[in-house]
């Protein structure tokens, strides 16, 4: 399989990107400034992320579309207003997460943003569960660009006036160079921000104009440290086919109105809502400077294995190692002492609240 390039590939090279393969695409892991500077620039100003590798699935046609999609996704799609977005999941029959995604109601159907590594499989799964009357289009003719950070609204407003009136988890159509762009106010960094779906041929000039207005390109490396500080899950690390949204501590994304209704995996979820879960995703703060990465084993004070880390790094804004992982539910209470096995040593750590980094309206508040 040949490696794919996004419409911003030349721009990545121009700005000194170190390119890596990610989910079949050649993507920037970092630019000249490096991960820490890029991370901090996003938190203090704004950062531009090429997320064109992600899937943009449009589904339309048929009066029963909302009903039929509610049989697949545990979101309250009937209540969704046009241009409103919700975080949800594609699950298997065991309630395991096949992908986590954002569903937006559009004027003629729904737009679902899918993870890059999952998008082709998601398309097949969703298609197989829907009637032939519906039109599914995994549209690869648009780039997807995220602009994140406290200055994101000011920068974007200079390039596409009016978008600062969007509310969080809402979207709308705008015009850029006489072409339609679709913008949602959302993101994956714990900052205010936008995701812009734009024609490939306009993507490069659009990004250059964001740069001219003070923003900088940010790589996947900083995207990962930003999302970890914000306590957000990465599919494949923190979420997988054997983990339910309840176990992932994402219960908030399953609306009460849907618990008693039927959807793929609903039996398991209903049962977990009533009887609880054995394992739970938690935040983990090591006592020392040692970093516990994904797959690090977690022990209790009696040296019994109680879980495993799924993501871990050094948090550039909290200036401390951070991690998240799954532990036996009886150890999930905040401030429980745990031990992380790193290079043969047991490193003391505490269960802590997520996120590690929380924004307030004036400035960042640090939780670690």
């Amino acid at each position: 399989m040949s490696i794919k390039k996004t419409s911003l590939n030349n721009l990545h090279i121009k700005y000194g990107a170190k390119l890596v393969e990610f989910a079949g695409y050649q993507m920037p892991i970092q630019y000249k400034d490096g991960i820490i500077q890029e991370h901090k620039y996003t938190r203090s100003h704004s950062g531009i992320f090429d997320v064109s590798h992600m899937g943009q699935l449009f589904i339309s046609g048929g009066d029963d579309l909302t009903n039929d999609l509610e049989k697949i996704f545990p979101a309250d799609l009937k209540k969704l207003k046009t241009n409103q977005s919700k975080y949800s999941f594609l699950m298997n029959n065991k309630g395991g997460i096949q992908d986590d995604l954002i569903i937006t109601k559009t004027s003629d159907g729904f737009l679902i943003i899918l993870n890059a590594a999952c998008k082709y499989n998601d398309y097949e799964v969703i298609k197989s569960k829907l009637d032939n009357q519906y039109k599914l289009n995994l549209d690869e003719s648009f780039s997807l660009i995220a602009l994140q950070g406290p200055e994101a609204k000011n920068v974007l407003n200079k390039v596409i006036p009016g978008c600062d009136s969007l509310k969080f988890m809402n979207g709308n159509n705008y015009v850029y160079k006489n072409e339609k762009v679709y913008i949602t106010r959302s993101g994956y960094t714990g900052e205010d921000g936008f995701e812009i779906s734009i024609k490939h041929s306009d993507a490069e000039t659009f990004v250059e104009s964001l740069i001219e207005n003070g923003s900088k390109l940010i790589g996947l490396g900083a995207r990962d440290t930003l999302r970890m500080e914000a306590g957000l899950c990465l599919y494949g690390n923190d979420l997988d086919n054997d983990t339910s949204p309840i176990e992932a501590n994402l219960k908030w994304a399953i609306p009460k109105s849907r618990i008693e209704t039927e959807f793929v995996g609903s039996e398991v979820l209903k049962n977990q809502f009533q009887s609880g879960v054995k394992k739970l995703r938690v935040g983990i703060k090591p006592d020392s400077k040692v970093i516990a990465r994904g797959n690090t084993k977690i022990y209790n004070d009696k040296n019994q294995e109680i879980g495993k880390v799924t993501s871990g790094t050094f948090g550039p804004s909290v200036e401390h190692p951070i991690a998240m992982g799954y532990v036996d539910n009886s150890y999930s209470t905040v401030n429980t002492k745990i031990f992380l096995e790193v290079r043969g040593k047991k490193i003391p750590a505490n269960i802590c609240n997520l996120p590690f980094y929380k924004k307030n309206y004036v400035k960042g508040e640090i939780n670690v």
Partner: protein
Amino acid sequence: MSEVKYSKEHEWIKLDGEEATIGITKHATEMLGDIVFAELPEKGSNVDKDGTAGVVESTKAASDVYTPVSGEVIDTNQMIVDDPSKINEDPEESAWFFKLKIKDKSEMDSLMNKEEYEKFAKETSA
């Protein structure tokens, strides 16, 4: 007179009599990116040529640091433990990792000189 040699694992070693100072090369730090954690061998411990003698971690990954020669650890650089970003700033001078009392000077023979290392680093990163 001191001589500086280089290993294929991207360590540099500076020999002064029987005392060797070891660190990682600028090229290594460029490949690693921002270093956020460093672990050093214990003072008084013995390390064997090509064995693990420390760890550096970037935001992305952990990498072992190897010792290019055998010997007893006589000193370690606490500065880089306290502030690992110093390794990115000055890897081949003030941000050294550890000092050894070396066992066998002839272990230096198989290492590369500056010119050979630069060629090696260029070829392996291409």
